[in-house]
């Protein structure tokens, strides 16, 4: 991973689980292509550089930065701004950076509640009700930890983003394809997609990639997956189990429905959908087999957690973004 005037590459995790890094490492031997074509200047999981090394770089000197993880605290925001300044192309990589992912479900609660819950669980022994302090004096001096923000934000709510690469995590074959494309661009054999594009995805929906049989069937009742035996050939939604395929962007080759499990929406909104949750609700409403308001209401009782089911991955990126209590801090 040495210099030689090669274009510079960086990858960083903010509030994230590390699955995005694993997905990149899972491109196996393609990693060597990254090494051959780029100078990796910052990538905490794979190589050794510090914040101050990034600070010392010239603005715009990193060609490509893959940024995963959401913005949860002041440290995340600081590094997002730093990398934006230093990078020509900043990619929001993975669901957390794109839409907040599951950690953004925290936006339904206020921050005090989040912290209080963690430090008063039934197994926590905390008689003095201690909470972590961002500044704390120990006998030897002062200790610091980052400040949590009241709401989880997506990367592009903090800094401008050039490209979006969704998925939780993005599938490795697509990561490899994106890296190939950038290398071709560097060699003058291809052109970059227009700024703001969603890359490493298909342009239809998961349903289009799904091999399950679909009829025009309508449903009278929503089921929970543990209560029925899923027919291995038939559309899961038609069997009454909420599947996010109709609202979700294609690209994963419908992995979850193939494994007998509904799509939960990790590739984010299908092309053109302004708000993922409302797109999914429309799709779901269209399979409900009733015109009687009372009966419809009864059918929708089968979806007991609409916030979690329609905005599982993308609350931070949705039109809703957060609840009132969260906004108040």
């Amino acid at each position: 991973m040495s210099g030689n005037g090669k274009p510079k590459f960086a990858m960083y995790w903010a509030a994230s689980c590390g699955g995005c890094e694993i997905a990149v490492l899972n491109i196996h031997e393609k990693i060597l292509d990254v090494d051959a074509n780029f100078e990796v200047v910052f990538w905490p999981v794979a190589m050794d550089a510090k914040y101050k090394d990034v600070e010392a770089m010239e603005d715009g000197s990193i060609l490509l930065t893959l940024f995963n993880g959401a913005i949860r605290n002041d440290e995340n925001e600081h590094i997002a701004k730093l990398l934006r300044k230093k990078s020509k192309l900043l990619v929001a990589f993975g669901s957390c950076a794109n839409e907040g992912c599951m950690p953004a479900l925290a936006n339904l609660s206020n921050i005090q509640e989040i912290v209080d819950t963690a430090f008063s669980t039934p197994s926590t022994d905390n008689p003095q009700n201690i909470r972590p302090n961002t500044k704390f004096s120990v006998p030897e001096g002062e200790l610091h930890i980052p400040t949590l923000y009241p709401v989880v934000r997506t990367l592009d709510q903090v800094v401008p983003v050039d490209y979006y690469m969704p998925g939780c995590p993005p599938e490795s074959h697509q990561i490899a394809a994106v890296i190939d494309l950038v290398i071709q661009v560097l060699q003058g054999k291809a052109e970059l997609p227009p700024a703001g594009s969603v890359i490493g995805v298909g342009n239809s929906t998961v349903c289009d990639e799904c091999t399950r049989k679909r009829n025009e069937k309508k449903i009278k009742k929503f089921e929970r997956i543990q209560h029925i035996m899923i027919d291995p050939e038939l559309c899961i939604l038609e069997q009454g189990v909420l599947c996010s395929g109709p609202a979700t962007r294609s690209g994963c080759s419908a992995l979850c429905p193939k494994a007998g499990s509904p799509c939960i929406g990790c590739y984010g909104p299908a092309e053109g959908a302004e708000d993922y949750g409302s797109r999914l609700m429309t799709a779901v409403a269209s399979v409900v087999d009733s015109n009687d308001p009372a009966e419809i209401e009864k059918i929708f009782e089968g979806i007991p957690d609409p916030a979690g089911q329609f905005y599982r991955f993308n609350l931070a990126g949705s039109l809703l973004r957060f609840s009132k209590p969260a906004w108040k801090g």
Partner: protein
Amino acid sequence: MQRISIDPITRLEGHGKIEIFLDDEGNFANSYFQIPELRGFERFCVGRQVEEVPILTNRICGVCPEAHHMAGAKAVDAVYHVDPPRTGKMLRELLYSAFYCTDHTTHFYALAGPDFIMGPTAPVAERNILGVIHKVGLEIGGKVLQMRKYGHTVVEMIGGRKVHPCTSIPGGLTKGITEEQRVEIENMGRWAIEFAQFSLQAFNDIVLGNKEYVDLILGDIYTHHTYYIGTVDENNKVNFYDGKVSVVDPEGKRLGKYAANEYMDWIAEHVEPWTYLKFPYLKKVGWKGFVDGKDSGVYMATPLSRLNAADGMATPLAQAEYEKFYSTLGGKPVHQRLAIHWARLIELLYAAERWVELATDPEITSDNFRTIPTETPTEGVGIVEAPRGTLTHHYWTDERGITTKVNLIVGTTNNYAPIQMSTKKAAQNLIKKGGEVSEGILNMVEMAFRAYDPCFGCATHSLPGQMPLEIIIKDANGETVNILKQNC
């Protein structure tokens, strides 16, 4: 008072930090291993359909989502009072065994191995996985990649996805495997056994054949006398997927065994205001601070802990290695933290043997992989052994199966107090006078927590396996007086 900041510790999710304080004479005063992150899963998993929680909690960690998926799956089984059919449980354990092989392999070769294969004092630039590959050859490097690939292949076949598996639901799984897949899984498993044996042989040749390393392992600097926990089967053999959690004291005497739903009688979590992570300890002994010994409730949950807490391994090849381990290191329990690496390889062999055992069970391809729950959901606990320690998920629901409360005690968290103690001991032993802090201390501090394979991030899955450290020494006015770097 001087302060030495190790910040950020990259490859510990980039979010770890050690603060070391020296007194005015430059002697070690104290150190703090801080975790600066909190995402709040225990709050936002409330109000969700409980069958989703094993998928939501996958996003706690992308390095071992399999562990969260399994602990979660067992918790939702318990919530619905449903016992999956034998095939369902075997499929989950098969996925889990393959995952263990991948995970332990990466840790050994990419992170821990370089210290031994290249030597703790080898040039920094060589002491990483690339150095290892140069030394042992590309063929072996290729084997390491192959092992990771095979493990992920099985995880995807049974779990639906390579990262964040999605197929376990209350009562079993959403799918089984075909005979064709079984054959493929079996073949990969047989290869994994050979790979594990090869890895143990390499450890034997490189580490045990070298007196310097043996002395390092047995030395006091990395030794702590604590309690140990680990899940065992009904014969008290190590088990990753199911059984009771065995607790042994620093003399190796079994204090007892607890079932998943009894965990709160045994484990409690202590809070310190200077970090976002809690410190679990043994409730029956009590929290006495960051100290060793029988009176202190500090325990460890690692591969070494599992071996210490069990009476042996359930598979023959791993059992032979287990016996050799204790006879070489002077009997049970072993307290030396660097021995965790050896224990990890013994577990790798066990996981590979178990993989083949399960893949060759005639019932593994049966269609009976699920039981539909009929009871009203209430409350349930699921425990599995994550590679980095016992993982506990506890969910409470209303009668519709909507979560009302969630409690999680995550793998690495178990080891937070020991990690704090080990890094402190290393610093304490190595820093006598502030001005004399040398580059050598950096790798020694590193080795103190690397043994735990801490998963504050993807430490185990890094490519060049060397932890970059930077120590900034400031005087009382906050002026930097010295900067020591390794790999920066």
